[in-house]
């Protein structure tokens, strides 16, 4: 019928008619280039990563032996390597928890109280730090945390120099200066990943119906009670969604602990130095599989908690 109303006039029309009769073909043609790219470049590389992790390195020649072995994964369990994994996971957990606590007031204010112009201020105020240069942000903290930097200056200015020294004298998390301690590493991680926690949290807070808050107030609940019994449970999927980012990004980062922190390695640094100067690509690959495995478990739990609907 449509052919009669609009007779085919050129190749463009004939092709249109052709695809009209076979809509699946067009969808397939559209999908082919991106799928080929992602399939070959990305999935192919991930497969290469897995493959490499089952290879091993010849201890004498230093060359990669392309034969299947679990020896390389076994090396991850050596205390010095296992410590790296534990240290990284502990840091990721601490950063995630702190980001949730620090981010909640911002997300809550932006979702509930910011109107009109302020809404835009909050939106840009969260979005710009999220997108602005990662390295510049890390560099800013190197300036802040340096021994001769602004924190030391401010602490001495208000007469808290001794307090700062006392904090730095703490075992494990302390150090020579903030920029060479775990506290410094923690602060930079928190700063850089905080917006990733705020956004999903804000999105889920915005979906909490006002009527429920009114109902809670009508039933005599105080603000705190409403927060604890109504808002927090409803916002939880957003918090879990945000934690996926903060946890995963901390697990895989190697620039921040390299620039600000003690000389003890995190997973990312182990991967980077093993594939570079050490030339041990199999062990580097095995190390890189660790965050993938941890994130798979994490994502399975998150999915059960409904976090994917909040993304």
């Amino acid at each position, binding site marked *: 019928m449509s052919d009669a109303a609009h007779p085919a006039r050129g190749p463009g029309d004939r092709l249109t008619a052709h695809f009209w009769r076979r*809509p699946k073909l067009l969808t397939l043609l559209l999908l082919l280039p991106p799928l080929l790219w992602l399939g070959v470049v990305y999935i192919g590389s991930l497969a290469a990563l897995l493959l*490499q992790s089952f290879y091993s390195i010849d201890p004498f020649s230093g060359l990669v032996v392309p034969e299947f072995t679990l020896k390389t994964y076994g090396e991850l369990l050596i205390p010095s390597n296992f410590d790296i994994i534990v240290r990284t996971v502990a840091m990721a957990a601490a950063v995630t928890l702190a980001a949730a606590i620090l981010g909640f007031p911002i997300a809550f204010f932006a979702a509930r*109280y910011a109107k009109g112009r302020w809404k835009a201020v909050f939106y840009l105020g969260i979005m710009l730090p999220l997108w602005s*240069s*990662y390295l510049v942000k890390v560099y*800013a903290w190197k300036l802040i945390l340096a021994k001769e930097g602004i924190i030391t200056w401010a602490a001495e200015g208000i007469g808290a120099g001794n307090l700062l020294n006392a904090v730095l004298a703490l075992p494990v998390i302390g150090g020579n200066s903030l920029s060479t301690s775990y506290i410094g590493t923690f602060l930079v991680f928190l700063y850089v990943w905080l917006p990733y926690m705020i956004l999903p949290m804000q999105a889920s807070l915005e979906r909490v119906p006002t009527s429920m808050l009114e109902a809670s107030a009508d039933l005599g609940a105080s603000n705190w009670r409403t927060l604890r019994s109504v808002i927090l449970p409803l916002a939880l999927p957003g918090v879990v969604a945000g934690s996926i980012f903060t946890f995963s990004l901390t697990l895989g980062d190697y620039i921040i602990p390299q620039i600000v922190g003690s000389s003890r390695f995190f997973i*990312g640094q182990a991967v980077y130095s093993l594939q570079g100067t050490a030339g041990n690509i199999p062990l580097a690959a095995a190390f890189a599989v660790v965050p993938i495995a941890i994130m798979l478990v994490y994502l399975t739990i998150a999915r059960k908690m409904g976090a994917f609907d909040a993304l």
Partner: protein
Amino acid sequence: MHSDARPPLALTLAAIGGLLFLHLPIVLIFLYAFTTEDRSYQFPPPGLTTEWFAVAWNREDIWPPLYLSLRVAALSSGLALVLGTLCAAAMARARFFGRDTISLLVVLPIALPGIITGMSLRSAFAIGDIPFSTFTIVLGHATFCIVIVYNNAVARFRRLGASMLEASADLGANSFQTFRHVILPNLGSALLAGGMLAFALSFDEVIVTTFTAGQQSTLPIWMLNELVRPRQRPVTNVVAIVVFVATFLPILAAYYLTRGAEETAGGGK
């Protein structure tokens, strides 16, 4: 707790404090570009000068990384624009088997830490004996930029709906005419926004790049080397300002391009 009630004071303070925490550190980058002290990060700066901008301009080692970064960002965002739009068009057209898998596949390169994408590509290059080049950098960057364009385009396709396309067909346009006169004008600003965000993301990327660049140096890699082994520290600040502005402006522009729509660019980095 009405939504129009005044917020508690503690909440307001915590929210504003949090926003300041997110923004004040960047101010220091600007301040330190003017300091006269180039051997330490002394605060407050002993004196202020503008000489470092001239010094940075004349440093020969800054220009090649800058050009490489611009070239990589242009190529990667161009590739991502084509691939991301195609993917979004297909996903908007039809529901089919494996649809969720494809959307997961698109998001994965940015959802997993950069070190995994980087190390994966490094493993593949090692197995395939592929030498490092501009091409290997672009390969990595385009992969994680696709999702940025895709997110922007798919949201716009969803808003466009099927009725306009049907109207166009009813008026006798073929698919190519519909694409040229209906889809493209409606998609334009979303694609521009997505392309600019992808450009900013690629221009600034360092983690994947360190695995795919070999001996080459992009601007972020140059900066990283300066951070590890500082020479003239304020010069690094000048470059940091350039990088900051080069990522800041596209983001701001993308925001204004897609503002007002229910989907504002940048929601999912």
